[in-house]
């Protein structure tokens, strides 16, 4: 087999950062090559170099042995390289056909009209050739994420791509859609296409790829044959040390119920039940974890709990009071702290300095905003205390939030929320996109709160995080708790099945998988755990 893509000594520097350090990569024609690594390992940067989005600081890109320089993605597309980004480049109100042919529409009447029949025909033909299930006339906004992804792939194929780069293609997919994607990838390679697929999930890399290259800290640490490797080997390559997260955790000293949700239903904009009847209780001194693949209703549930959204049905109680319709401010004042999922959108006002950001949520409180007047000296002291205690760097209270790194932004938010002396903390993906040092720091602080008798709700798609920190955990799938389990008594495999919608006791979901789960995994000490 010939080499389709050859990256030779690619180095890419950003100011103060080496994103790729002398990376070599060879991908054979007609194969799937997984690019594996943790967040921040430099995978996407490397592929952006190949796709012409970045110019490498040094190194060469060769396609079929020919050295190439791409000034823009257009050059890359012309050379037969297509990239499917995590954020799809699709025009929502336009149809599948219109999106696939955008910019290269077949014309008629001397170019005065789009030949719509020919365009549709071309799309149908392409879809048939690769066995894609897409409706050429559906609008993008009306089709599933999986179908949108297939449209993106069709777009690249329509433009004559021989090499396809997929950036974290499974992050937004349901398990069934992941299966469909892998089938698509197999069909594409069978017909001679070359695929590079970026992931941080080693199971997927092993399953879908022929070869796996592992990146760590911007360097390539190895390329292995997918069939000849083990999970352990890949994990070690990825992490480069013993896996951490064996958090020291004494048994929970649980008190009374602090927060409770019962039969909460939240509908999204389209009237689909994003949260479909979830119930749970969180007690003082315990961490209740919610695990699940992103997009299974976690965001909507958290918003309903914290007052950013209103549930369509059900009840939310906090300290024995019905707060279902209480405002966000009322909940803050009642002692609910919240580490939001999106720190740059919600958690911080990016163009404000840290002093003003430390005030966010406390501006009407008695300490910093007594009688509607802001006590600026006290607010500054408050921000400086957060910076000091939570090791925020640079230690400059006047720095704008946007000038901080992600980890330091997150530490500042965590500090601000924890310093409210909350009774209940909702932590939504508290360590997403955060460096390792900050992750450990945030985890320790969460457990410290638990020791102090605070009730913690932890939502994360990092399984090891939820499992390592929680006393009980609910596994969410399509807006429902598939099960509520004791994390110490449940294996990763069992959790994996639950996250894929496989109900314990064999009550199989649409996936139709047959594996029976261990009956012991059914909830034993669940308080208020909801089973559908």
């Amino acid at each position, binding site marked *: 087999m010939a080499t389709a893509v050859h990256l030779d000594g690619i180095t890419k520097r950003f100011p103060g*950062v*080496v*994103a790729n350090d002398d990376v070599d990569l060879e991908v054979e024609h007609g194969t799937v090559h997984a690019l594996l690594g943790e*967040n*921040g390992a*430099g*995978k996407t*940067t490397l592929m*952006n170099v190949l796709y012409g989005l*970045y110019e490498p600081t040094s190194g060469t890109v060769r396609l079929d042995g020919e050295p190439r320089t791409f000034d823009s993605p257009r050059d890359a597309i012309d050379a037969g390289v297509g990239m499917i980004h*995590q954020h799809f480049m699709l025009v929502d109100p336009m149809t599948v056909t219109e999106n696939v042919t955008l910019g290269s529409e077949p014309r008629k009447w001397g170019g005065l009209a789009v030949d719509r029949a020919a365009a549709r025909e071309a799309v149908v033909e392409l879809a048939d050739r690769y066995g894609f299930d897409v409706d050429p006339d559906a609008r993008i906004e009306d089709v599933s994420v999986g179908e949108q992804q297939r449209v993106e792939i069709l777009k690249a194929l329509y433009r004559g791509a021989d090499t396809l780069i997929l950036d*974290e293609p*499974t992050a937004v997919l349901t398990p069934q859609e992941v299966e469909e994607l892998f089938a698509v990838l197999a069909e594409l390679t069978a017909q001679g296409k070359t695929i590079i697929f970026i992931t*941080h*999930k*080693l*199971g*997927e890399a092993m399953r879908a790829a022929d070869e796996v290259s592992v990146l760590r*800290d*911007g360097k390539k640490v190895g390329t292995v044959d997918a069939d000849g490797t083990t*999970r352990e080997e890949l994990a070690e390559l990825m992490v480069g040390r013993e896996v951490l997260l064996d958090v020291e955790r004494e048994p929970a000293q649980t008190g009374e119920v602090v927060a409770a949700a019962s039969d909460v239903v939240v509908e999204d904009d389209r009237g689909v039940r994003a949260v479909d009847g979830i119930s749970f209780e969180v007690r003082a001194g315990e961490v209740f974890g919610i695990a699940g693949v*992103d997009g299974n209703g976690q965001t909507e549930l958290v918003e309903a709990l914290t007052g*950013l959204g209103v549930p369509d049905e059900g009840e939310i109680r906090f300290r024995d009071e019905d707060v279902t319709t209480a*405002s*966000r*401010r009322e909940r*803050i*004042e009642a002692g609910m702290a*919240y580490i*939001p999922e*999106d*720190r740059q*959108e*919600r*958690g911080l*006002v*990016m*163009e*404000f300095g840290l002093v*003003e950001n430390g005030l*966010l*949520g406390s501006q009407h409180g008695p300490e910093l*905003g007594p009688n*509607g*007047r*802001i006590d600026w000296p006290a607010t500054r002291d408050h921000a400086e205390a957060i910076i000091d205690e939570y090791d925020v760097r640079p230690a400059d209270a006047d720095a704008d939030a946007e000038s*901080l*790194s*992600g*980890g*330091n932004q997150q530490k500042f938010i965590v500090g601000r929320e924890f310093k409210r002396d909350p009774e209940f903390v909702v932590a939504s993906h508290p360590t997403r*996109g955060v*460096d390792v040092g*900050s992750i450990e720091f945030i985890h320790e602080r969460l457990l410290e709160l638990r020791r102090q008798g605070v009730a913690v709700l932890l939502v994360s*798609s*990092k*399984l*090891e995080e939820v499992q390592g920190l929680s006393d009980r955990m609910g596994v969410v799938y399509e807006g429902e708790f598939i099960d509520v389990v004791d994390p110490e008594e449940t294996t*990763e495999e069992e959790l994996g099945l639950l*996250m894929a919608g496989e109900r314990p006791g064999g009550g199989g979901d649409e996936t139709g998988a047959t594996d029976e789960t261990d009956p012991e995994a059914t909830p034993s000490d669940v308080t208020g755990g909801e089973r559908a």
Partner: protein
Amino acid sequence: MSAADRLRDALDRLVEASATERILISTAALVLSVLLGAVLVLVAGRMTTCTAGEAVYYLGVGFCYDPVVVFDRLFLGALGDPLSGGWSPDGQFSVTLRETTLLLFTGLSVALAFRAGIFNIGTQGQMVVGALATAIGVLWASSFVSGTVGTVVLIPFGVLVGATFGGLYGAVPGMLKAYADANEVITTIMLNFIATGVALYLVSGVFKDPNSAANQTVPLPEFARFPAVLFGGRQDFSLVALAFGLLAIGALYYVLEHTAFGYDVRTSGVQPEAAEYGGVDAERTVVASLALSGALGGVAGAMYVMMVLGTFQTGIPSYGFDGITVSILAGNNPLGVGVAALLFGVLKSGTTVVQFATDVPPQLVGVLRGLVILFVAMPEFFRMLAKGLPGRGSRREAVATDGGAVTGGGVADDEGGEADE
């Protein structure tokens, strides 16, 4: 990213953060507008006809209008010719201060809404409503009091009436935006037309002054008008009103910077999602900011009635629209509004001087106003001019990388979940 790119980025970040840049840009916009205005005057001077004696010659070409004279009259004339001796506070200078006073209020009105992220084009309408309400309210109340006591009671009363009705009228688009999601740019423009129409109806009907041919209300008694202090009353300017205006600047600055409400407003203005997260009631903040903004517009109307006209007459000058210019020029900063209002006060007052001294049409000032806004709206243009760096005039958005050996970096946020293994 090349070294030039990085340099440009660094410079951008530097200048974006600095307040001096705002001042520089505003000044540059003004200078550029004046220069373009001069060109316009020259061109217009070629298009009209005049005798050879009246013409002025530049580079051997004759022009009917002389931009130097125009801008000399516009600026120095507006200040009452301080350089030529014989300056009196009762002259053109007090006209300038009168205009400044009114523009202070409309400018603050627009600025407050802007800070909340709302584009209030309706200050004009809110001013009309405030003015009409003040004229009617004070006229009614003036039958109960008189003399100095009357002045002391009626002036605050009139301002209050103007603020209340302007505020209520401002709350309308606020509620439409907050609860019906109606775009405030459009609703406020429509409400301007409605305010003018209804005012015309009322003033030509029920509230019409029977002794006047014009569509106006019965004039207020002298004691119900702002007293002229230091400045003679001839130019309808009152230092008291200006003091009110300066007080309003201080008050608005305090509200924005030192109160929880101001914090809510500013946070909503720059990042509404974060404001919501921080417990800000988005709907209430929208309504409250627009009501307050309308109240300031209403006060401008009250000032106009009680200081300038002494009655409500249809065809209120476009102080509300000028307020938009003032606010934009001031970077929506209350303190900056003070300076910008003085500047536009000079322009407006100078217009009449220009009209007396030259044949140049007064609409020139309207063009200048538009040009200033246009230039202030494009800071990028000045950045390019200032740096003289060739190439595209745009800074690339922070690129989403997935980092490498980064110390965090707000970079991996977009990465999906990591549920496997």
